[in-house]
């Protein structure tokens, strides 16, 4: 008995000619655009070409679809076992910035930098416990490039040890000291350096000022210029909310004028400002995921140059446009304790950057000795759309992937709950952006147009 696939995602989206419908199936890997007539026939069960629907996996024999689901899941987990690991190291939670939305603002950092002994213990852990795995290290914080003798010596030693092992290095920094530290960082092969600019100078400096006041924009821009000139990849993050989204196009103009967007070493990411733990001075300016991307879409329509600066993913819409295929199904979107681990200078190990430094959320220690909380690690590793009850019957699970475990725990008390993403709604916007032509005209529409165009 045939039935429509439970993984079909069907919805309407606006085009230049009115509206069309998209039909996306992340399990079968197909995507199509339908007009109103085709959409109705599909819903009414009298689509003319059943064979085509079967080939594309939109119409299925349910037992066969379940077998396909199981096979895709195994492939996903096997592929992830071979995936590269991102290992974060936090040498300090101290920071010279007083960002208005910092989620680490309530952390109580210990002063000083990790000793060589601790850095050696960190690398020994990598050498021994993660032997044979592809991996790279990321300096995180706080602010890892703070200018003190112990901090500089610590960074230098860390970079040397990474380079000795052939490990690529990424750095997440506020960028204030980037220009001065580039020479030191480049002793290792740099994967990328992430910095944040929240808009043009007056907007950015209001949100990301020095502790005690003082602008930061110009110094960060100098750092980005210097890095790109040296061929060092830059990942520019913009943390967005209602306050600065209307000014995003001006930041885009700056990046375009400085030549950043023409560099193959430059990329961007948009980060939604949101409430993680207690970090917001002005919660009224926050947006939901959907609100952010609805408003971003409107900004793009008003200021198309934003797309030269940043092309939003809208889940799989951008990928579909760029590659004419769908990415594989996502059974788990959270990398914690799987392809991401975070170590801090206290000797503790955490599942991810959202949890690192948070009391009670460590999953073990690497110093003074290696001790792992295997039950805690297992609960993170077991989390996916099969283990989260709400995800099992969700038609968008294979694009959402269950969301962020840290947010799920923060909101619902357990990582075994979902952090739902508005997949359908974001796809509606994304399809409008990347496929504005919608469907071709039907024969009926063409006839009507011909009639209208005739001279009377």
């Amino acid at each position: 008995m045939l039935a429509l696939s439970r993984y079909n995602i069907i919805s309407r989206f606006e085009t230049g000619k009115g509206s069309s419908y998209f039909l996306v199936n992340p399990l079968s890997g197909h995507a199509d655009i339908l007009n109103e007539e085709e959409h109705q026939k599909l819903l009414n069960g009298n689509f003319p070409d059943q064979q085509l629907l079967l080939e594309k996996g939109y119409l299925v024999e349910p037992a066969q679809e379940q077998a396909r689901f199981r096979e895709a899941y195994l492939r996903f987990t096997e592929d992830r076992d071979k995936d590269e690991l991102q290992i974060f190291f936090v040498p300090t939670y101290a920071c010279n910035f007083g960002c208005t939305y910092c989620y680490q603002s309530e952390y109580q950092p210990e002063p000083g930098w990790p000793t060589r002994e601790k850095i050696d213990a960190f690398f020994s852990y990598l050498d021994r416990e993660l032997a044979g795995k592809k991996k790279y290290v990321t300096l995180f914080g706080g602010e890892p490039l703070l200018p003190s003798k112990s901090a500089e010596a610590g960074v230098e030693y860390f970079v040397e040890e990474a380079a000795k092992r052939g490990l690529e290095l990424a750095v997440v920094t506020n960028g204030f000291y980037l220009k001065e530290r580039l020479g030191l960082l480049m002793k290792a092969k740099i994967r990328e350096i992430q910095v944040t600019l929240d808009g043009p100078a007056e907007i950015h400096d209001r949100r990301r000022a020095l502790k005690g006041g003082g602008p930061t924009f110009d110094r960060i821009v100098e750092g980005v210029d210097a890095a790109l000139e040296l061929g060092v990849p830059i990942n520019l993050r913009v943390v967005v909310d209602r306050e600065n989204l209307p000014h995003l196009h001006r930041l885009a103009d700056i990046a375009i004028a400085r030549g950043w967007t023409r560099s193959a070493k430059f990329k961007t990411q948009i980060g939604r400002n949101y409430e993680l733990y207690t970090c917001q001075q002005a919660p009224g300016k926050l947006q939901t995921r959907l609100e952010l991307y609805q408003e971003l879409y409107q900004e793009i329509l008003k200021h198309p140059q934003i797309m030269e600066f940043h092309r939003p993913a809208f889940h799989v819409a951008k990928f579909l446009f760029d590659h004419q295929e769908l990415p594989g199904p996502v059974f788990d979107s959270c990398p914690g304790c799987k392809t991401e681990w975070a170590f801090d200078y206290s000797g503790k190990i955490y599942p991810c950057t959202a949890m690192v430094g948070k009391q009670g959320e460590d999953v073990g220690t690497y110093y003074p000795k290696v001790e792992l909380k295997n039950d805690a690690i297992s609960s993170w590793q077991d989390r996916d759309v099969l283990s989260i009850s709400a995800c099992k019957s969700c038609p968008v699970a294979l694009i959402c992937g269950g969301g962020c475990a840290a947010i799920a725990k923060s909101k619902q008390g357990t990582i075994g709950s979902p952090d739902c993403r508005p997949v359908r709604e974001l796809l509606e916007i994304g399809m409008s952006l990347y496929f504005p032509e919608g469907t071709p005209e039907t024969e009926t529409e063409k006839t009507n147009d011909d009639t209208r165009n005739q001279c009377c």
Partner: protein
Amino acid sequence: MVVQQQTKGLKMKSLTKKKSSKPVEKKITKISDKLGKGLVQTERKPTEAQCCAKTSATAVGCHD
């Protein structure tokens, strides 16, 4: 860039490339406790990183 499916009056516009039919390889993979047995492996597909941590140095990217 997009393939027009012209089949029996159907004008669904395909957004995904036509796939070549390759023989399916049978391979017994490791068995997960959550799944059944008798599984068949087919060709791999690219995956899109859902969490910024995979494609970037990231801060809280995957949480956004």
